[in-house]
């Protein structure tokens, strides 16, 4: 919880109105981002992203599973987020459940695409090992370690980086003659397949404070929001998901305006993230 | 007694306050003054039940369902059949799983995440009555002896709680079983049962159950709840009455007027004569409910032939 005095509130609102925020940023400027890969050795891929004082960790684990009956030619991806109480005392006990669920749903909406699998960030058919029998189940876990606003954007960025860090073991399948039997699977320890993460989108949350909207809001700024829209944008400029996150209603023209601004900012954010990923990979 | 002083205190005020306020402030006095005139707050006689309607087939996704209204109390019962392997003790019997739900929409007293206490009591009683009354012949739920049989999930939802919940729940459960239509099934190569629909299917697959499409009922239980307050017996109490009265008696009778169960959940003591009165009231009620149920079956059949 952020407790602000009237003067502080006025300062934040005034700063946003004049395009000079409390930390010296402009309205559509992100905080400095730092990216680190391979932070969880047990996972197939992992990343830590710091956005100002916000810190999140994403891990990707791959397990062999069985494809669903409805989609026998596709693997499965699930995304869960947990907010650690270290980030804020209000996440203690069951206190984080509701917020974690909201973040999980928003990420699923932005990364998993439609029910048919169209527009998904990860090509689900690349996760299939044997049609209808064996596939990879990707478990993407996000953990919020430290929170200073804009968690959703940070989590989406961390997932994008973690996916680019992910190596899926190469699998050799020995198909037995009898079709009913479970195929034998030999998981390789040495060879790994990398993902094509170029189409994984980023999320840009536009927070409306007063008449203006800002990107990458801090906790203090978020406490002053009237409403917020999270837009997920991929490299091709397509919108891959959108969630309005509570608050007052918005005029339709404002919504369309926000979408086009988010698209623009998102493209820039993707290129920043790409160079960070390259730097992190070089450092590793 | 507190109730007495309340009643006299109320007496002093009656001329000055409005009926609705009096009802809220002195619910006991309000009810007792009605009973003295042999009429109830909703204009019923003490021995009069509320209008009851039964609509069969209210849930399209279920195999059997019924919506019952008892005054403002509304119950929705649905039966879904699933295939199970029968236990070794009874290889030629199916089984029934009963659940009674009180979702938060039905009453201001129920909150999400906290199931109402009364719901589990009604659930247990409902299960006992359905099993012990001899209404169901579990052998009829068998498909292939020792291999496959039906497990009938009976889910009763209370949509609006306004008293006499058990009576309404029992009627809806019974009606749902009467409405239950067992799907035609066949056994696939993998040993799993699958449903067969349409006419070409019937000729293509070897059917397991051609005859047993509806259950037969020799015995149908009905119940009546009577509220007992001082010397008077109020049939089919509303939620308002239930919150005031001293105790209640629920009588369950089968088709031959045999007593399946009598329940009196503690509370004030009652004479045997009052219990006998309740039983005779329950007998009258059983006949009426039976008529209502048969009418609803006819109405549904007429609707289907149209």
């Amino acid at each position: 919880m952020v407790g602000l005095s009237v003067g502080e509130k006025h300062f934040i609102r005034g700063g946003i109105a004049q395009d000079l925020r409390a930390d010296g940023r402009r309205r559509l400027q992100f905080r400095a981002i730092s990216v680190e890969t391979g932070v969880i050795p047990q996972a197939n891929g992992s990343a830590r992203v710091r956005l100002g004082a916000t810190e999140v960790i994403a891990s990707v684990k791959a397990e062999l599973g069985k494809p669903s009956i409805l989609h026998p030619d596709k693997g499965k991806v699930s995304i869960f987020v947990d907010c650690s109480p270290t980030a804020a005392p209000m996440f203690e006990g069951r206190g984080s459940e509701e917020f974690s669920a909201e973040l999980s749903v928003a990420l699923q909406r932005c990364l998993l695409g439609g029910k048919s699998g169209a527009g998904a960030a990860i090509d689900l058919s690349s996760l299939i090992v044997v049609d209808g029998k064996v596939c990879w189940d990707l478990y993407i876990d996000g953990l919020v370690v430290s929170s200073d606003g804009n968690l959703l954007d940070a989590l989406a960025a961390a997932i994008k980086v973690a996916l680019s860090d992910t190596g899926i073991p190469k699998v050799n399948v020995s198909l037995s003659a009898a079709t009913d039997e479970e195929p034998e699977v030999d998981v390789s320890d040495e060879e790994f397949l990398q993902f094509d993460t170029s189409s994984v989108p980023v999320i840009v949350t536009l927070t409306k404070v007063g008449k203006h909207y800002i990107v990458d809001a801090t906790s203090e700024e978020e406490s002053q929001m009237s409403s917020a829209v999270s837009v997920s944008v991929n490299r091709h400029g397509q919108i891959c998901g959108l969630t309005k996150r509570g608050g007052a209603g918005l005029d339709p023209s404002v919504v369309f305006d926000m979408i086009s601004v988010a698209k623009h900012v998102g493209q820039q954010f993707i290129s920043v993230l790409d160079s960070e990923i390259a730097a992190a990979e070089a450092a590793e | 007694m507190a109730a007495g002083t309340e009643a006299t205190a109320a007496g002093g005020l009656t001329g000055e306050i409005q009926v609705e306020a009096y009802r809220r402030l002195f619910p006991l006095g309000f009810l007792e003054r009605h009973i003295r005139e042999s009429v109830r707050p909703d204009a019923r006689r003490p021995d009069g039940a509320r209008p009851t309607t039964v609509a069969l087939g209210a849930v399209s996704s279920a195999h059997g369902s019924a919506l019952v209204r008892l005054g403002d109390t509304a119950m929705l019962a649905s039966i879904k059949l699933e295939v199970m392997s029968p236990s070794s003790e009874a290889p030629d019997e199916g089984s029934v799983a009963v659940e009674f739900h009180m979702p938060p929409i039905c009453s201001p007293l129920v909150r999400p995440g906290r199931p109402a206490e009364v719901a589990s009591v009604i659930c247990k009683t409902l299960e006992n009555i359905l099993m012990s009354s001899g209404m169901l012949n579990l052998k009829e739920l068998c498909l292939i002896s020792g291999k496959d049989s039906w497990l009938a999930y009976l889910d009763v939802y209370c949509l609006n709680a306004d008293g006499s919940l058990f009576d309404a729940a029992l009627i809806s459960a019974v009606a749902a079983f009467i409405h239950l239509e067992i799907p035609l099934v066949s056994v696939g190569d993998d040993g799993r049962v699958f449903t067969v629909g349409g006419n070409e299917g019937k000729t293509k697959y070897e059917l397991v159950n051609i005859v047993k499409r509806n259950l037969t009922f020799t015995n149908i239980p009905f119940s009546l709840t009577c509220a007992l307050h001082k010397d008077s017996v109020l049939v089919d109490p509303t939620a308002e009455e239930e919150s005031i009265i001293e105790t209640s008696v629920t009588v369950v009778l089968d088709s031959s007027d045999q007593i399946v169960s009598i329940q009196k959940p503690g509370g004030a003591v009652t004479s045997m004569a009052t219990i006998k009165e309740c039983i005779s009231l329950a007998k009258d009620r059983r006949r009426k409910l039976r008529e209502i149920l048969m009418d609803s079956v006819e109405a549904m059949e007429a609707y289907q032939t149209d």
Partner: protein
Amino acid sequence: MEYVNLLTGFRVDGRRPNEMRQLKGEVGVVARADGSALFEMGNTRVIAAVYGPREVQNKGQQVNSKEALVRCEYRMADFSTGDRRRKPKGDRRSTEISLVIRQTMEASILTHLMPRSQIDIFVQVLQADAGTRAACINAATLALADAGIPMRDIVTSCSAGYLCSTPLLDLNYIEDSAGGPDVTVGILAKMDKVTLLQVTKYHELLLIAASFRTPLVLSSIHTNSITTILHTMCSLVKHFSCHLYPEGHCFL
């Protein structure tokens, strides 16, 4: 399985029996917390954050208004273990460890200096490779020190086990899952006092003690100062004679 090489005396990960894993500590990792620390013991990695002293949030929990209320929550990240499982929050093990950490830290915090206030200690396990209990206590100590909360002394903790007739300091996951007896000790380093002693497989320990009739080797680590950042963390094994009473279950 051979947990200690008979010829060389080395353990599966190449350590000597009385050698600890690589230790690493860092304070101030959570910007918005009053105190925080990251602590690593080999592959075990935990984060602790301290909020407080602050006003008591739930007055009902306050037992003694003359002392600070110390609370603790232990949580494992979904990805912290080798096989990914979503565990329900507040399972029995987490509750137990939360309680152990709380009691251990409470013994060191000068609670009487902060009446009518509350101190929350949150520990989050990022990677579990055995010894999370000890790592959490070390991280919590660092975080409390970072928050500037007055303490009697620095609490440090380490575990030890007994496999292949050898006492082993600071078990890793492979050694921990071998199922031998193990001991976790928490000490107030300068005062040289034990605040935590947990023994599992107590009966096996009894047998061992009975057959060898030797003092059981337990462990504790010494920390010199953790005022700003861990300068040095010298680890040494202390011989700790404990009297195992046949009928006792817990001793402290």
